[in-house]
């Protein structure tokens, strides 16, 4: 097994589109861990407010016109990342995860007013992240949460897009934040507790990394996360699994009263489909549309085609030939037995048939399957632990449908247009809560 170090806490050794096997070799996993632990000690000694301040500074910088990182963010369709890094968001996420008091990660705090005992969230230690290659955003979100909870972070990236996460980590190392007392801290305070690596042999490396971990964080497809969960681990190791799921949209008849309102919903659906390159577990593939409105589901599909065409002007960056072929297959099928709206090339596609039921097989490449339902509550029958986000375009029935869907396994029911936002709870948990040990004194 060879360990290639793509980012060593200060320096990245790979271009965003570079070959990870050209990076420096590390022969001792123990040395990596020891370096990380040293970086973690600096984190532990720093108030979490400073860590959030650094993230906030990164989020601000990465939205500035002309900023190089901002251009990268735009190119990868991960505009959500700098917004997610902003102070208001992170403070909320951390407080939610830490029982309402983010100060618990800095020291003992009185969480239970009636008790004399105080509580504290101790970092678990070393987080090993396995990050899927197609959604670089996930890697950053995973690592930032590990850092805010003051853990050391070893990130194993996939060969695909191996250089993207190191790019953002190196950019984070460059960030500076001036504290209220005037003292300045820089991003290495965060990144000294991170290493991004690539390993050439998945099997032996995976087992070695797994036994190092205090927390195993796995993002990816079913086969990948199952393989990680089946690896040997030390007693007490925590697992945070973001496995394969699919997401959908439900559009109620009340949103189809007129073209203006329906188009607004279609615009939001299109926005959700384009975000994250439709690769996220929170990206919609199936759009359930209720019959009975002034506009039919088919008419909504047509509107959706127009709006998706507007939202997906750029050629998607990562359509594999096999994927393009699948998209063409669906187009031909729906041209023959239903309705299809699509671009030249394979930028986007919308399909509809009166006969279709249930969840569509995801096709990716900004492909949406519109399916009619007589009643939005029918959708619950198609839900399970494999369905993650249901974007809802509904009126007063929203919470009632959310109750039905979440009872069947759906994890989130945001308004349509907000499906791509990473928020908590996620996949049924507060991830940062799982990255700490709760102790009392």
């Amino acid at each position, binding site marked *: 097994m060879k360990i290639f170090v793509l980012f060593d806490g200060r320096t990245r050794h790979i271009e965003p589109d570079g070959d990870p096997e050209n990076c420096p070799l590390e022969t001792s996993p123990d040395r990596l861990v020891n370096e990380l632990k040293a970086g973690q000690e600096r984190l532990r000694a720093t108030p979490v407010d400073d860590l959030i301040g650094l993230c906030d500074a990164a989020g601000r910088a990465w939205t500035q016109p002309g900023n190089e990182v901002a251009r990268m963010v735009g190119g990868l369709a991960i505009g959500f990342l700098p917004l997610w890094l902003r102070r208001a968001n992170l403070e909320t996420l951390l407080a939610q995860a830490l029982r309402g008091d983010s100060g618990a990660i800095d020291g003992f705090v009185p969480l239970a007013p009636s008790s004399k005992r105080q509580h504290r969230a101790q970092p678990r230690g070393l987080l090993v992240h396995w990050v899927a290659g197609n*959604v670089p955003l996930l890697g950053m979100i995973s690592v930032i949460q590990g850092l805010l909870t003051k853990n050391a972070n070893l990130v194993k990236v996939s*060969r695909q897009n191996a250089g993207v996460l190191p790019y953002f980590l190196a950019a984070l190392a460059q960030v500076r934040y001036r504290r209220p007392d005037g003292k300045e801290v820089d991003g290495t305070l965060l990144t000294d507790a991170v290493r991004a690596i690539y390993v050439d042999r998945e099997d032996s490396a995976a087992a070695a990394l797994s036994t190092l971990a205090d927390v195993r964080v796995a993002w990816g*497809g079913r086969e990948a996360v199952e393989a990680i969960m089946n690896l040997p681990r030390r007693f007490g190791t925590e697992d945070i699994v973001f496995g394969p799921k699919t997401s959908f949209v439900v559009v109620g008849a009340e949103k189809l009263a007129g073209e203006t309102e329906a188009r607004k919903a279609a615009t939001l659906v299109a926005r959700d489909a384009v975000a994250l390159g439709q*690769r*996220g577990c929170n990206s919609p593939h199936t759009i359930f549309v209720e019959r009975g409105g002034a506009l039919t589901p088919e008419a909504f599909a047509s509107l959706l085609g127009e709006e998706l065409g507007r939202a997906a002007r750029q050629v998607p960056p990562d359509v594999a*030939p096999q994927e393009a072929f699948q998209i063409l297959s669906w187009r*031909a*099928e729906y041209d*023959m037995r239903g309705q299809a709206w699509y671009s030249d090339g394979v930028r986007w596609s919308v399909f509809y048939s009166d006969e279709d039921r249930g969840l569509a097989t995801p096709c990716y490449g900004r492909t949406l399957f519109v399916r009619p339902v007589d009643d939005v509550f029918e959708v619950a029958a198609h839900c399970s632990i494999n369905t993650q986000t249901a974007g809802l375009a509904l009126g007063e029935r929203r919470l009632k449908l959310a109750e039905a869907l979440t009872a069947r396994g759906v994890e989130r029911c945001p308004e349509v247009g907000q499906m791509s936002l990473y928020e908590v709870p996620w996949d049924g948990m507060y991830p940062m809560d799982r990255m700490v040990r709760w102790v009392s004194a």
Partner: protein
Amino acid sequence: MTAQMGAIDELLRHPPYATQPGEHRPLLRAAVREAMQHHCANCPPFARWYQKQGADPHAEIEDLARVPFLPVSIFKRVALESVSERDVVRVLKSSATSSQTPSRVVLDRITRDRQMRTLAVLMSALMGSTRRPFVVLDAAAAQGADVELSARVAGLRGYLMMASETHYALDAHNGELELNADKLEDLLSGLQARQLPVCLIGYTYMLYQYVVVPLARAGRRLQLPAGSMVLHFGGWKRLERQAVDRARLNAEIEKVFAMDETCVRDVYGFTEQLGIIYPDDGHGVRLAPVYSEVIVRDPVTLEPLPDGAPGLLEFITPLPHSYPGIALLLDDMGRIVSRDREHGGRYGTRFEVLGRARGSEIRGCGDTLPEQIYQVREMARAQA
């Protein structure tokens, strides 16, 4: 038969390979137009799709690259027939190696006759018009006689019309295939004594796995009669997993059969356009005959690519009469090597097949659903 049927018939009377640059293309375009008119008139789903592409089947075809093309997988998804059921004489199913659903195409007499005719002339062009003994690298038990034939058996049957006699190299024992090397050696010795060049024919992976590997392991080298050929087909997917490429296969064949390496030919073709075969020149380069044209398309823009650039392969032929398999895009990657450059007195489009198009690599958390969900979906579809 309508007057317009003439273009296809005329094309089929043409020698298999062009002897002048582009001499056949006007006729091929006319034949493709004739075929499109037939399918638009007789296959309503196809007509609907064709119209959706903004194409007029009656319009002259000026550029084959502008003819609307279907992804070949459409035959796994939609029943497309351009003749009445009573005219169907055979149903072909593909091997479904890369998906769970086999492709299904129906053959009528017209299609079957065209396929046999083109296959016969293309095989003659490859190995001469004299029939020769064929040794099938399979077991005899693999042959079926049902109306619904697997594409493997159907494809092989077509080749065997060039056989003066047919032998099978493998034995089947309890469902396991095994080479009887002694029997094969005796057979080849007998044919050599009669000075009969032989054709060893079979799937690429079977040739390697069931013939070449056992012979090599046993340290045997069998003499093939002079002028013999090895034809293999079916693709490299399984051998790629074993890191066996063309060069290695040919080298291994040379070790176990005493023969000229250039007589090993990899034949490319596919169920949905049976009758047209693309044997390579021993080094992976193939020539499109006059009955078809090959186009390489950009996977994202779908536009034709410049010669030399790799992309998705599209094949156009007017042969299919019973189903609209005229212009088909495959999920195989390839590239155009040259166009209308003379080679052995033949002109046309030369191309390479580079293998199956790659899929997306490791996905994010939005990876495909567990199989159970698909099964539910398929069941619901079946019940509907």
